């Protein structure tokens, strides 16, 4: 039986501490979810000292730290608790990380936008400092010594003068009786005393992953659960006209079919609709589904043909759009004559294709839903299920197992809503498993974009005017049927924030209608904007007859803070203040200079078919410069022997995880540059599995990616996404250096690199 009692509200211990609403809210995976975990299931909320929502200290000395952000491979589940453990002076080996359920009391749990560390570094430090403060105070009172004379070492409070020492576990009960200190009374460790921050730590789940014990969303099981495979309308907004109700039931293990209504626009995170086959196991559900023989009313988006649509986007990009940033007068500068250069770029739709397909298990009973979802956003799971089932948000409990990748797809919990709807209809817990084909054909796609660039060059080859236009269907279309124009949030990503030192500079955008679901994908609009801007910078360097790297530094100009609000008043800076996170060209320069040195740019000696390319890009408040080396053989096959990436992400909590993220970003960038392309015919997506939507394999990946992390005391910024944007332009600039062939359309598989 499913023990819902374990997840009820009673596990909130409220009001035990002083006002200030530091309430413990820790909840657990019920024991019966994974039988093997039953013995190890602990209860942080029963630990004796729990001064904040993020931490509890038990009398045996076990420190429970809550990971409230989803773990999809970026190590946030390890790195944030590490910050807390460091400030608490806790022994990491005595820390148990507990994954939070969805609850607004944790603040944002939407694990996207590369901001877990940026937003929660300070709250985690404070939580650790509070607990440490209370343990010290408890010890000082017991010993009758001044607090100021007490200090901590790993997991113990010490009074040096008397040689007294007490473990955190011994002190927990006394500390729990103390009031929570005021924030201004907290003392933080100096960076020189940090044990974990900046030192690097492997994932809390490393051994479980390597032994197959780690539990992902795909692995959720509860007693009595059934499995569902869902046939979705092939065209967005399509409706089911008819299907064969009997044939699927002939498959052994199939129990029933259930219709899911097509959403009412806007689609938001609602299910697409369609018909589900419910069975005793995943295979029977998938097999039964093949016998559905559905007939669809495809609806308005059946007009979408991506080849034609591409031409329309490109046509629009050749016309003036709405200025999102303007300084000087580019059009007047172009009219003055002199050397001008123009180019057009294009990046198609992309799919996320995380290794674990969308999956969720939901159990509806008595007006409440318990759901185990592979989700980046458990609070959105609560919201969409609440809306679709007409129950309060608080009646939805969302557990978050490990995610087998996310890349932004799993911030949109349509599949979790499907599971809840089906569980209610069939009266059993239901696990919805998307096939790979479902994943590729029914994604929230990275948008498709066309860019037009024009520059007027001075005698020294540097631009006196730079015009850039982008045209793409906006992510806003997912939330508003009338939305076509790009949002400021999309335009900030590599467009309005261009750091080049050019007197006449204009960034324009024109809207475009969306015909598929559009969503954010790892680094989002930075992908196509950086591809166009950094490729065009290289084109300008070539037109000027100058070295690409030297020219890029000249384009960036002298170290300065870009006065961005003057020319782009709507610029949102990823939600960070411009005081804490200015656009600082000294940092662009530093990463370029670092990668130049490390990659051996100036001393490079390249043979036939070999090239090096560079790109620099700031995204998610992190500065990255990447140099890619390529070899292109006589058949036009590309090999990437080496990548060098320099990263300035401000204070880096976990350099080891950061290196991994940037190594991975080079592979992710390789995938989108080499193969990434989603197309549609009559509204239906053409690709379906890794045969038609290839992603990079080992033999196609960069052989070696070297990551250099700049030591910095600047406020922490993102590391999950910023490695992606500079990769494709650096690669394509390298291909130009190797072959003379300029790549203006991705993917590379659409381009012939040899005659």
């Amino acid at each position: 039986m499913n023990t819902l009692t374990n997840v009820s509200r009673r596990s909130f211990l409220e009001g035990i501490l002083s006002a200030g609403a530091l309430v413990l809210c820790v909840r657990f995976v019920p024991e019966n979810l994974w039988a093997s975990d039953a013995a190890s299931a602990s209860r942080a909320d029963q630990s004796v000292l729990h001064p904040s929502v993020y931490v509890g200290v038990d009398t045996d000395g076990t420190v429970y730290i809550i990971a409230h952000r989803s773990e999809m491979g970026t190590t946030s589940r390890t790195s944030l608790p590490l910050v807390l453990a460091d400030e608490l002076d806790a022994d990491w080996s005595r820390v148990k990380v507990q994954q939070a359920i969805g609850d607004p009391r944790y603040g944002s749990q939407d694990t996207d936008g590369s901001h877990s560390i940026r937003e929660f570094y300070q709250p985690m430090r404070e939580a650790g400092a509070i607990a440490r403060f209370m343990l010290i105070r408890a010890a000082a009172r017991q010993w009758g010594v001044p607090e100021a004379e007490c200090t901590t070492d790993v997991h113990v409070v010490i009074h040096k003068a008397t040689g007294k020492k007490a473990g955190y576990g011994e002190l927990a009960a006394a500390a729990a009786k103390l009031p929570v200190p005021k924030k201004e009374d907290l003392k933080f460790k100096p960076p020189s005393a940090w044990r974990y921050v900046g030192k690097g730590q492997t994932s809390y789940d490393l051994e479980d992953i390597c032994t197959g014990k780690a539990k992902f969303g795909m692995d959720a099981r509860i007693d009595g659960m059934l499995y569902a495979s869902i046939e979705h309308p092939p065209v967005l907004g399509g409706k089911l006209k008819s299907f064969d109700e009997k044939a699927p039931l002939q498959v052994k293990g199939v129990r029933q079919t259930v219709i899911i209504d097509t959403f009412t626009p806007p689609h938001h995170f609602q299910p697409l609709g369609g018909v589900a086959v419910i069975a005793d196991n995943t295979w029977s559900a998938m097999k039964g589904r093949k016998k559905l023989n559905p007939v669809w009313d495809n609806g308005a988006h059946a007009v979408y043909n991506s080849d034609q649509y591409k031409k329309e986007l490109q046509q629009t990009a050749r016309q003036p759009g709405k200025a999102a940033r303007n300084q000087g007068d580019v059009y007047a500068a172009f009219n003055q004559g002199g050397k001008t250069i123009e180019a057009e770029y294009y990046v198609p739709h992309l799919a996320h294709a995380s290794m674990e397909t969308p999956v969720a298990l939901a159990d509806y009973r008595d007006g409440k839903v318990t759901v185990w979802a592979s989700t980046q956003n458990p609070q959105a799971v609560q919201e969409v299920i609440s809306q679709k089932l007409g129950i309060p948000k608080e009646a939805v409990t969302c557990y978050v197992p490990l995610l087998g990748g996310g890349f932004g797809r799993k911030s949109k919990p349509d599949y979790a809503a499907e599971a809840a709807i089906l569980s209610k209809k069939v009266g059993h817990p239901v696990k919805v498993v998307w096939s790979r084909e479902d994943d590729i054909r029914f994604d929230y796609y990275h948008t498709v974009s066309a860019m037009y660039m024009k520059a007027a060059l001075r005698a020294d080859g540097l631009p006196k005017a730079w015009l850039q236009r982008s045209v793409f269907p906006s992510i806003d279309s997912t939330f508003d049927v009338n939305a076509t124009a790009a949002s400021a949030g999309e335009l900030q990503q590599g467009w309005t924030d261009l750091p080049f030192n050019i007197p006449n500079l204009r960034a324009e955008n024109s809207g475009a209608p969306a015909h598929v679901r559009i969503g954010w994908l790892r680094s989002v609009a930075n992908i196509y904007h950086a591809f166009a801007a950094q490729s065009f910078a290289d084109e300008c360097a070539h037109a000027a007859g100058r070295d690409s790297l030297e020219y890029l530094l000249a384009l960036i100009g002298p170290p300065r803070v870009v006065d961005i609000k003057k020319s782009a008043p709507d610029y949102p800076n990823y939600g960070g203040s411009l005081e804490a996170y200015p656009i600082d060209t000294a940092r662009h320069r530093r990463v370029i200079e670092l990668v130049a040195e490390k990659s051996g740019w100036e001393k490079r000696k390249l043979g036939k078919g070999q090239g090096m390319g560079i790109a620099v890009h700031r995204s998610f408040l992190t500065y990255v410069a990447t140099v890619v080396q390529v070899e292109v053989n006589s058949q036009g096959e590309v090999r990437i022997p080496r990548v060098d990436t320099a990263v300035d992400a401000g204070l880096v909590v976990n350099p080891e995880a950061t290196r991994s993220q940037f190594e991975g970003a080079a592979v992710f960038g390789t995938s989108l540059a080499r193969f990434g392309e989603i197309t549609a015919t009559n509204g239906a997506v053409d690709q379906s599995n890794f045969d038609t939507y290839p992603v990079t394999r080992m033999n196609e990946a960069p052989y070696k990616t070297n990551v250099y992390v700049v030591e910095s005391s600047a406020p922490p910024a993102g590391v999950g996404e910023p490695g992606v944007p500079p990769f494709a332009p650096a690669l394509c600039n390298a291909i130009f250096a190797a072959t003379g062939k300029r790549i203006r359309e991705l993917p590379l598989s659409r381009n012939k690199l040899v005659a």
Partner: protein
Amino acid sequence: MIQIKVNGVQRSFDGEPDMPLLWYLRDVLALTGTKFGCGMALCGACTVHKNGKAVRSCITTMQSAAGSEIRTIEDIAANGLHPVQKSWMEVNVPQCGYCQSGQIMQAIALLNQKPKPTDDDIDDVMSGNICRCGTYQRIRAAIKAAAGERA
């Protein structure tokens, strides 16, 4: 009735003979370490050992697995961590970790065949296993480290 040995335990299966071994392992036996990734032997997430050889369990039907000995990731560390698992941890290979059971099963099979694999050997055998997080260079390093340990 299909007879099959899984991680040393003899089992009988009376379900659909065309059910892939993957779903038998995951849904029937609750051995969820073996992952679903594509269903078409394109990604390798479902890799297990059948009579000592790496196979894609998503296209291996129960019928074709009848009478065979299957070994999954759950059994690899039954008597302590395997050298490949150790080197995977030392090199800190995983990011999300979802594909890593399959990668490790494939790597063990490779090293059983070729205790000192070259880069080309590693490419040939491991390129069937996709890692969307992009941990390939660490996978390569971990295989080489494991090869050293075995020497």
